[in-house]
């Protein structure tokens, strides 16, 4: 009988190889239909009127002119008179019309009177935040911090921060929604949760959950911001109902997308750290705050990774701001915690005149259970970036520095959980030998489809193109939302179990014909054969023909028998930057990552995940900032012109090394989407400090901030 446990290295046909993603051809050819691309007969176009004010009361709304316009099919007030608007861009009226220009004309025909109220949209300067916007502080303490600071040889204090950034998914949030009859709804959303996104809609519409059919083939980015049906999903479905059930397409315009469809909370902290002369870290104290809009947010984990510093005292306070609400942004809280923790520790190393690599290695046991992983990864990364050759004391400028361009190196370490989510998978072996894998999951561009095919093909001893993968529909076996790096562990475990169960059933069917028992059979190289005896075999097709008319369907589950996936990874990143000290412009020279993620299913797409996270990291380190205007309460860069993303040539040279083999593979697959996003801000900010000899406190590291830090340093002498 075939076993669940993953095959040993050397016996793997597909697992861990570099395999091109299955949906590559439809994506490069433009054939891939994203939900935004769905066009339906008689389809209407939806629009939503949004508040221009950050804080206001709705006094009146007049939709009569819009309703009368030819081509307008339905107008619905979402938030009417008396409603208190809490951020610019909040929804007031939804409508649908025969085409988009008509819908837009109708939107502009709506008249709203507002009573403006005072707003707060920036919180970096805590002294300017009214008490009424402060949420209760949470505190934590271990050891005796006061005593530790008193006894320390070196104490460093600093301020570190990270402004709010947005998800800026290229496919904006939205859906195509229609009533297929008076009781049934079909939605094509852009979602990270195909199997569950309809539940809130069903509740809201008072429909049985089974009456809503969800389908999505491809999604143009999510990054944690696309789990819910969202207010517009509900309202547009109601608008469709008002319009006789006609399909309505509604996707957010870019300004709304970056204003209100998700952001990563800000994080600011005053940090005090202490060490002995020999570099042993003894104490951490942080006073931190941040905002994710009006809702509460939890504290980033301070100190990050270095949880076994003996004396720790932390305080965190969330600030309410009149800004579009935060959503999970790739590894919630970790990038901010990494920036602030690794920044303070790098400053401490600089004060000690220690090489931060040596300093990290010396203290590595303070990271706890993953100390050995970090040690191995630090040494590997140091080799890749030639740390010993290229690192210089802070402010000296690395090799190749000139009068105006200074080079520097910086590092950071990070962690993430990534435990497998729940997942059901149907593996079907048909009498004609074809194999199907069916699952209500989604491929966010991380290679989920490909991973399903790899696991099934590996388990059944078949080539990849023998597997047909069907995902993206809530009528398929339920699998979890793709968030928290939980997908790969979940979907690979359920597919493995389903494939093995199906295979064992096939063994039972064919064993008698092969004059043997099922436990003596194996599936290798497209054949079913007696273990170790290739002369006694059937081709896969011959074997399946023995099924008669009845296919085998096996439902694999996660969780299930035997643990196939686990959680908890460590990673290290090191950045090599150049800073033009006359202009304050930072350029990436080289950026390396060493990452652990347990057993790798597809090395090619796994590496792409790390490259992608690092590039997103360069972008948030150097360019991204949601610019909120104190006076008008508006986002001033609600576009892609001044909400800057890095381009092809802004990233420098990249190298990724995946930790594999003994000590890693046996833990099974562990999610990878999030961990490598955590360190870039810290590594790059530390590299800049190393290059120019002064800390630039807040991300993004824009020219104005770099020059201001340099001027401050100059002033100090």
């Amino acid at each position: 009988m075939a076993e669940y446990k993953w095959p040993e290295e050397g016996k793997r046909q597909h697992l861990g190889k570099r395999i091109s993603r299955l949906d590559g051809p439809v994506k490069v050819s433009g054939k891939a239909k994203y939900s935004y691309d769905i066009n339906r007969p008689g389809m209407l176009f939806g629009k939503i009127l949004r508040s221009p004010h950050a804080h206001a009361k709705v006094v009146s709304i007049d939709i009569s002119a819009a309703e009368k316009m030819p081509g307008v099919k339905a107008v619905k007030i979402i938030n009417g008179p008396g409603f208190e608007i809490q951020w610019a861009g909040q929804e007031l009226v939804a409508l649908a019309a025969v085409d988009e220009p008509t819908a837009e004309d109708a939107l502009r025909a709506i008249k709203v009177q507002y009573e403006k109220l005072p707003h707060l949209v920036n919180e970096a300067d805590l002294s300017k935040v009214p008490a009424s916007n402060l949420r209760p502080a949470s505190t934590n303490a271990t050891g005796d911090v006061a005593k530790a600071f008193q006894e320390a040889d070196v104490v460093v204090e600093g301020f570190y921060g990270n402004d709010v950034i947005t998800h800026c998914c290229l496919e904006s949030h939205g859906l195509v929604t229609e009533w297929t009859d008076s009781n049934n709804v079909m939605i094509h959303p852009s979602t990270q949760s195909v199997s569950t996104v309809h539940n809130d809609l069903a509740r809201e519409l008072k429909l049985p959950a089974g009456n809503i059919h969800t389908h999505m083939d491809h999604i143009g980015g999510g990054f944690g911001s696309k789990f819910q049906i969202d207010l517009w999903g509900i309202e547009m479905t109601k608008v469709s109902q008002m319009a006789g059930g006609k399909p309505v397409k509604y996707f957010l315009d870019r300004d709304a997308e970056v204003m209100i469809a998700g952001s990563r909370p800000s994080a600011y902290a005053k940090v005090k750290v202490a060490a002995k002369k020999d570099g042993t870290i003894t104490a951490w104290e942080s006073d931190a705050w941040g905002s994710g809009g009006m809702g509460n947010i939890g504290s980033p984990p301070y100190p990050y990774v270095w949880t076994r510093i003996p004396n720790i005292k932390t305080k965190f306070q969330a600030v309410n701001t009149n800004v579009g609400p935060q959503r999970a942004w790739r590894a919630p809280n970790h990038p901010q915690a990494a920036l602030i923790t690794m920044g303070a520790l790098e400053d401490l190393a600089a004060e000690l005149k220690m090489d931060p690599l040596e300093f990290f290695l010396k203290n590595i046991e303070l990271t706890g259970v993953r100390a050995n992983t970090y040690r191995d990864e630090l040494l590997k990364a140091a080799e890749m970036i030639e740390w010993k050759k290229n690192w210089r004391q802070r402010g000296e400028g690395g090799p190749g520095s000139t009068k105006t361009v200074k080079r520097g190196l910086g590092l950071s370490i990070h962690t993430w959980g990534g435990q497998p989510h729940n997942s059901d998978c149907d593996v079907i072996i048909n009498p004609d030998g074809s194999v199907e894998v069916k699952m209500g999951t989604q491929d966010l561009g991380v290679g989920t489809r490909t991973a399903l095919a790899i696991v099934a093909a590996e388990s059944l001893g078949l080539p990849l193109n023998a597997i047909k993968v069907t995902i993206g529909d809530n009528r398929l076996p339920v699998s979890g939302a793709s968030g928290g790096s939980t997908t790969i562990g979940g979907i690979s475990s359920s597919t493995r179990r389903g494939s093995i169960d199906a295979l064992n059933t096939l063994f039972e069917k064919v064993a008698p014909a092969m004059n043997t028992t099922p436990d003596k059979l194996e599936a290798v190289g497209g054949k079913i054969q007696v273990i170790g005896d290739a002369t006694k075999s059937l081709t896969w097709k011959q074997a399946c023909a023995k099924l008669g008319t009845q296919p085998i369907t096996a439902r694999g589950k996660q969780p299930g028998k035997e643990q196939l996936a686990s959680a908890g990874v460590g990673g290290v990143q090191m950045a090599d930057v150049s800073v033009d000290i006359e202009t304050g412009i930072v350029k990436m020279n080289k950026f390396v990552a060493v990452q652990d993620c347990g057993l790798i299913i597809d090395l090619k797409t796994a590496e792409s995940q790390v490259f992608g996270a690092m590039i997103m990291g360069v972008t948030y380190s150097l360019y991204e900032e949601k610019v909120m205007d104190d006076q008008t309460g508006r986002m001033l860069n609600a576009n892609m012109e001044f909400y800057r993303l890095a381009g092809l040539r802004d990233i420098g040279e990249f190298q990724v090394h995946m930790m594999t083999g003994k000590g890693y593979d046996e833990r099974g697959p562990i999610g990878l989407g999030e961990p490598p996003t955590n360190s870039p801000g810290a590594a790059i900010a530390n590299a800049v400090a190393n290059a120019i000899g002064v800390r630039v406190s807040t991300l993004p590291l824009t020219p104005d901030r770099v020059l201001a830090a340099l001027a401050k340093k100059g002033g100090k002498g």
Partner: protein
Amino acid sequence: MHKFEYASPTTKEQAVALLGKSWGETEALAGGTDLLSLLKDYLVTPKRVVNLKGIKELSSVLTPRDGSARIGALASIEAVRDLGRGFAALSQAAAGITSPQIRNMGTVGGDLCQRPRCWYFRSGFGLLAKDESGNALVPNGDNRYHAILGNDGEAKFVNPSSLAPAFIALNAKIKIFGPAGEREVEAAKFFVTPKSASEREYALQPNEIVTMIHVPSTLGVRSATYEVRQREVLDWPLAAASVALTLDASKKVKTARIVLGHVAPVPWVAEEAAQSLIGKTISEDAAAEAGRLAVANAHALSRNAYKIQLASVAVKRAILQAVS
């Protein structure tokens, strides 16, 4: 975008006849790279859009042997990038627009007539950026990208043109066609600082169009443009400078023009800085001194003092680049 009617005339006479007599009635469409955004954001709401691209005579680029150039207003920015060595300041400015899509679509005339990128203007608060009560938003607002020179009036935006500083540095003249026929203005005088939100930033009448830019002989001229941009991908410069120099036989500066971009409501001619180079051999020190003089009268708003440094560096680097 509001509904509009559309016409695509084939002669400049037809075009100006189709344009309205007051701003706002009609808009001229060239490359569209700015106009379409303005339309989509309701910053202009014309009843008619007049497409100029049907006027074939306006897209030619002539570079006679005397080192001059006659650049049709509808020539693409990409065509300007291909001009020869004498026009380095221009081609470098064009190459600063790293998007091939913009260089293919965008026209020279359109680059000169594009509207400011001030984010208050683009958010609908008017060219002079005022709230409903008439309070100016820029002085106390987020003015990190606003003007550091020529900002003592109500206009605090910066002129966004990539090519204008280079044209001005090269002493170009701009040919304009209107109902009264053709006229010509110096490139430097084409740009104006509006006093009210209903004015425009250039010296055109609503029913006039730019037809051609004439760059006089560039024989012996060493020119360059240096832009301070954060990214290599399409990005607006934080500051830019174009310079044009002529040197005598002993490599001393005979004539000099220095023009700053993205620092003032108009492309900013730095006269004193240019004068400081006359009679000197270009050196790092001489270039740095010109850079300092170029921003001597700069006045920072609350958040853009760093731009003074950037402008000064841009001047220095443009001068050094011109003679390298």
